[in-house]
């Protein structure tokens, strides 16, 4: 097989991995345990959007994790 095939395979693999990073990032909801009203002075504020209530309930409920 030619160089082209292996270069294409390399690009394909890394593009797939980069896509996976993007997918995971978009699927990961913000921290459900994070209470944005509770700010510590010595820590930077989370820069992610707030979790909505239903997401928070789903992720903190262990039985929900088991069901899935």
């Amino acid at each position: 097989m030619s160089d082209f095939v292996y270069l294409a395979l390399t690009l394909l693999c890394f593009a797939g991995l980069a896509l996976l990073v993007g997918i995971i990032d978009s699927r990961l909801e913000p921290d459900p345990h994070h209470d944005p009203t509770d700010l510590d002075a010595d820590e930077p504020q989370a820069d992610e959007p707030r979790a909505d209530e239903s997401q928070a309930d789903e992720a903190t409920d262990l039985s929900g994790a088991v069901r899935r």
Partner: protein
Amino acid sequence: MSATTAAVLELLLLVAALAVSTPLLGRYLAHVYTSPRHLKVERAAYRIMRVDPDADQHWRSYAMSVLGFSMVGLLIVYAVARLQLHLPQSLGFAGFGPAGAWNTAVSFVSNTNWQWYSGEAAAGYLLQATGLTVQNFVSAAVGMAVAAALARGLARSRNGGRLGNFWTDLVRGTVRVLLPIAFVTALVFVAGGMIENWNAFHTVTTLGGGHQTITGGPVASQESIKLLGTNGGGFYNANSAHPFENPNAFINLVQVYLILLVPFAMAWAFGLIVKDKRQGGAIVATMAVLATAAVSFMTWAEMSGAGTATRLAGAAMEGKETRFGEAASAMFGSATTLTSTGAVNSMHESFTAPGGGIAMFNMMLGEVAPGGVGSGLYGMLMLAIVTVFLCGLMVGRTPEYLGKKIGQHEIVLVALYILTTPTLVLLGAAVAVTASSGLAGLSVGGPHGLSEALYAVTSAANNNGSAFAGITSGTTFWNTLLGLLMLLGRFLPIVFVLALAGRFATARHQPAGAGTLPTHRPLFVALLTGVALVVVGLTYVPALALGPIAESLS
């Protein structure tokens, strides 16, 4: 001194050396990955790379940096391997074919160092010293960086998923850790009789009138990072069984020590980074328990030597160097497969069936005891999270690790991590033993042939790099299959680890409550050890039963 006494003394010496160095190097590693200060040489590197070393990267950005850096490295090694005939110091060797060059490039970038070629008959000095040795350093530094990022993710609270800076971690791991230790050990190796030169090969006439080619090469400098970075790619085909690459028993022991040095120290550093030394101690203890069991069992298997021939000879010495003997071969074989090294000082195909099975099992364990530099730590931390999750289910509480709750997303990421390598191994083995091109590379059929194929795909997907020796893998089929397994086996888990680290960095620390499982006590060490064994057992035992177990019973 009997062989058994020598084996025990050697093991005790190794344990003592590691017991001294692990806390010391661990403390230094924790400082390296948390210090805000940059060295002058590091600042120069950042200027050349045009990166801001103080930028705190989101996990997504950190992962993309890892992938981008590794892809560029892969393409560079590929180009050097393909074009080596036209480059200086090629020794007249032709460039690798496309499949071979790709396999080699993936192999070294993924810290696997699987070698389908004989170094002394195919790779010139430029390829060895610039393409391969450079990757030995930076691929190891990438593994350490990912582990440090996960540790920082656990240590941080409500940080928005920021894990630090990949380029800073990469440069520091290389400049402050790997280069200095590799330099000193290279000098020790030269003093011990290892060669280090750029001489051309010499052909001499032997006493019997025949001709023999005496090779040269910058061996010691490659050898030190080969072991320190748990890389394993040898300068010569015989790897650490070659006298120029492993001159005597003392250097052999130093090599085993180097293999285990950083992985154990990284686990200790973890405890310091998360500001709870006991957590690092528990991880080190779990690694030590598994490693001691593996070394002891393999040494017993090789020294008891099943079979008529070995009983008559008094030892299972086939495929082993007489300079090292059974015990040192078994110790090296265990160390190299418990980590992601893959260097060999004996031919694993010639091990007794139980001994070869343990080598395979060590890799299937995920190389977590102590594992590769960095990869061993994050692999063990993944198992630790599985352990607290299972214990959480048993006591009916939401599981947490180091104050971070393990919710649905966290456990999904861990499950993906845990399933990735077995999926690659078992699918790879299935493809290999059903395709005619795959079967053509095996030296024998039956259980031993399956063991050859299973060992090769296990070694590739776990980024180990050692081979059973009987397999002929320099074909387009094997080079492509194993290349894919090495690449996916390295970077898929890294993506999941960094995503999890980002998740942890976003979450806030929860104070320990009455239902919190202490993760620093002997009970947790026992649970973690059990989980590691059960996860592997359930996954791989059917395949092992058809290979080494069937062979040992036949």
